[in-house]
């Protein structure tokens, strides 16, 4: 089980991230979570949205360098030690987490090279994994 993530190449300049988001608004796309990291000159902004294929098509059409990747999305219980337990499970299975970020605080995206292995590493716990359908469905109020 995985969710779709949209990665966009964005120059680190005022307004560039806004340009990306403008189209989302026009198309009625909802951002469920995102992470932005930069190197000084350019950045990669990663989005989890309710309609990833539409977001991808919109960005492509507007000429952005964009990529759709599959990432794991874990739904944590809101209690101490949960995040650590996920990362420990990855470490024990010798899976490198390339980057990770949270959607709302209990929904955490993990980018790994082998989704199935990572999923298996988490299977023993009580953690729930999330798919695109759930991303599309979840209103933030419910998650909170």
């Amino acid at each position, binding site marked *: 089980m995985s969710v779709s993530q949209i990665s966009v190449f964005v120059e680190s300049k005022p307004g560039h991230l806004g340009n990306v988001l403008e189209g989302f608004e026009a198309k009625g796309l909802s951002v469920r979570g995102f992470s932005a990291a930069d190197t000084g*000159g350019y950045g990669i902004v*990663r989005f989890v949205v309710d309609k990833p294929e539409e977001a991808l098509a919109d960005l492509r059409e507007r000429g952005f360098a964009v990529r759709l990747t599959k990432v794991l999305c874990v739904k944590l219980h809101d209690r101490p030690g949960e995040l650590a337990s996920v990362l420990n499970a990855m470490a024990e299975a010798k899976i490198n987490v390339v980057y990770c970020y949270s959607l709302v605080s209990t929904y955490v995206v993990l980018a790994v090279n082998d989704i199935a292995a990572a999923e298996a590493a988490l299977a023993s716990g009580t953690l729930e994994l999330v798919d695109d359908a759930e991303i599309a469905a979840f209103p933030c109020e419910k998650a909170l």
Partner: protein
Amino acid sequence: MGTPMPSPDKIDFSTLPIYKPDVECTSRERIRAIQLAKLIDQVNYTYDRVSWYRDRMDELHVRPSDIKTLDDVRKLPFTDKSALRETFPFGLFATSLDEIVEMHASSGTTGKPIVVGYTKEDMDVWSECIARLAQMAGVTAGDRVQMAFGYGMFTGGFGLHYGILRIGGMMIPAGAGNTERHIQMINDYGTTVLIATPSYAMHICEVGEKLGFDWAASSLQIGLFGGEPCPPGLKAEIEARMHITCTDNYGLTEVMGPGVSGECLAHRDQQHIAEDHFLWEVVDPDTGEPVPEGEMGELVLTPLDKRGIPVLRYRTHDLTRVTTEPCECGRTLARMDKVRSRSDDMLIIRGTNVFPSQVEDVIASIPRLAPQYRMIIDNESGLDRLTIEVEIHPDAFSDSFEDMNQFTQEVTAKLQSVLLLRPVVRLLEPNSLERTLGKAKHVDDRRRG
């Protein structure tokens, strides 16, 4: 429809038109004889009618009767752009303005514009030169030719227009700008030939793709480019994406305008010089002395039958080399390498000579980059710094910083191996560099002091 020309080894050149075969395919001896006869006439004409040249020739103690061989051209004074500025607007004209039927001027981005006037005979030569290069690309009377150059004072618009009329092609004088309308017109009128700057052709291509226009199925077959140097990578990309064959030509307002030389389909990196109208020399840009045939140097041009403004030994500052070997296309007229750099666009960065064309070649060889770039040179920190901005190709982006950093390092290393200095490479979003309608501006030198 819209089928690109086959590769040169598969083209049957006997099926392609040659506008004036008795000159374009004649012997080297005859070409030289034509040139000498015209040169003698032209020097006499110029000396008699233009005081500026008479004064300079007198200073050098050269008389028109001293011109007895083609090599004697070296006795004549050089002409630089400044001569046309000093004599602005009509000081170099050899005829009364009554005989001038058309005037043009260069854009004059630095100082006053360069003004040129053409007599009826000059217009005849000009349109013939354009007709020749259009036929080198395969244009015939049956073609529908859409103009995307600006008309107006710029020599490119009307120059190409008259040449196409000379062949009997149908001109669609759309003019520059309004890209969507261009695409609509190609579609509505079944345009077969597009005349544009290469950077604007690329823009038309991209806009068409965004609108969902199917270039492969379109009527367009040929692109005639000019107005700015056409990087080989950009041309190849346009040919592949628009499914057309593109050639470009060389010329400059000071000696006529477009049409001094044109590209045939046998040697895509060279252009046949209209030698019966232009005497060429290739000289060392520093000494002005001739370099051996086939070696790189500055192109010097003497128009041989120009009546309105005769110009002797015009220093183009364009670097090229010329071969007189016969060409597979059937023409015997000399071929010059396409001008990739100018003696005056050489940059000296941290003591190293750098030509923008070197950057262009490296960028064109990297498929993950669009064939666009900008060079920024500054010395804010005291030392010269070269920053090269390049656009990542939309499909070439990966989700990994590691990969993008590695890619940036690879581009830097490739550039460093050619330029012999290490640039800062900055990756930009697709389509973020300006696509100009006119001369694409690639260099921004911000150095002070």
